[in-house]
């Protein structure tokens, strides 16, 4: 009798993980690189910073890279119910925009690759808008939504959240990007996944005089024409009626660093095949970034409303 040691090892691993309540809600690849429970701090998630010059001068930063906001360890504290808490424990990581159209808050986690193959990020997350406690009857309407004690205008005030990579191997740098576009700038509901067909403009390109974007440009891909819908189907979700009820959603994004390609996106029970979704690399080779393995989450408001992305927990895993 021969023993399939690989399948026995996988079975033992699955059994151990499914008996661990912190991990059983995830579906990681064989090697867990990071397990971020924000009850124990920010785990290296930090504001995306720009590339400053040898004197650290503010002026040397790209304008749209100057204000990505520090992440907050949040107990999800609201005016109407007090502390909402996390999916597990009290704290989650909150990314919060300013109340300025186009403003984007971005947090990044910085690693390097010790192999090639499948790379996956999983998260339990929720998106919200700052509650409004003032105004007149006009506060009951925004974009497509008029308050009816089921739909709430704040849902139309949330722009988008994005999960993405910044990867580099053999000098070839690329980004895998998935964005949940909730509305357009007028508050019309979109609620679809999108991806860009161009690489993110870099500080090095600005240094070379190729671009110079304004403060509230979309840093991932500034031209709206460079974005495509993943599907024409609306992505249904559970915003849950008001801006102070948090229901945690599951997200899983898989890529392949061997082929520098997208593989799959899962959002709750919906699974999208991403193998035909392009990952445009930069034409130019990049120095100083060999084996770069970064993930970022961002949240972007399109109106004068603070938009929030809450991350309860995040797991990054690989098959190498």
């Amino acid at each position, binding site marked *: 009798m021969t023993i399939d040691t690989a399948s026995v090892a996988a079975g033992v691993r699955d059994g151990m993980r499914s008996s661990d309540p912190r991990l059983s809600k995830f579906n990681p690849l064989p090697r867990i690189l990071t397990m971020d429970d924000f009850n124990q701090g920010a785990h290296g998630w930090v504001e995306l910073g720009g590339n400053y010059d040898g004197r650290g001068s503010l002026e040397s930063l790209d304008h749209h890279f100057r204000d990505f906001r520090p992440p*907050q*360890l949040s107990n999800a*504290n609201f005016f109407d119910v007090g502390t909402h808490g996390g999916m597990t424990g009290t704290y989650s990581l909150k990314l919060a925009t300013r109340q300025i159209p186009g403003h984007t808050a971005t947090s990044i986690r910085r690693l390097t690759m010790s192999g090639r193959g499948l790379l996956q990020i999983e998260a339990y997350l929720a998106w919200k808008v700052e509650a409004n*406690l003032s105004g007149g009857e006009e506060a009951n309407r925004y974009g497509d939504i008029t308050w009816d004690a089921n739909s709430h205008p704040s849902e139309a005030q949330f722009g988008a959240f994005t999960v993405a990579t910044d990867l580099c191997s053999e000098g070839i740098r690329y980004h895998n990007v998935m964005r949940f576009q909730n509305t357009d700038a007028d508050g019309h509901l979109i609620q679809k996944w999108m991806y860009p067909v161009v690489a993110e403009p870099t500080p090095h390109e600005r240094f070379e005089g190729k671009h110079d974007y304004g403060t509230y440009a979309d840093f991932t891909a500034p031209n709206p024409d460079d974005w495509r819908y993943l599907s024409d189907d609306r992505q249904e979700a559970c915003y849950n009626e008001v801006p102070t009820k948090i229901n945690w959603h599951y997200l899983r994004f898989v890529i392949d660093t061997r082929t520098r390609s997208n593989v799959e996106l899962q959002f709750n029970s919906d699974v999208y095949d991403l193998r035909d979704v392009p990952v445009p690399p930069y034409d130019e080779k990049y120095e100083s970034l060999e084996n770069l393995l970064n993930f970022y989450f961002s949240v972007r408001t399109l109106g004068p409303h603070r938009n929030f992305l809450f991350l309860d927990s995040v797991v990054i895993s690989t098959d190498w």
Partner: protein
Amino acid sequence: MRQSQSAVIERGVELEKVLETEPFEAAWAGEARWFVQFLRPAPGSTVEIRAQISPDGINWIDLESVSPLESEAVGFVSLPVERFGHWLRLRIEQTSGSGSPQLRIHLELKE
């Protein structure tokens, strides 16, 4: 080991009379310290800096235990705060003078 976080609340904001910093959640922290650095000073001005607290991140009042800090809008000042509840922000007002200082603001939090 105590948890800690340092947040750059403003990186180079121009003070135009009054600045209220973005709401920042600090429920987990037992102590905090603000730093306000005048990247571009406004000599001859007076700037008043006060710590504010909130139960919800929307409604704000002064933190009663800390007196407002007065600065001449040059150099670097610091303001320690504790027993602040769950939210923190700074309210900074230029009460005299005409130049517009540029500020860098850090918030340091510790369990």
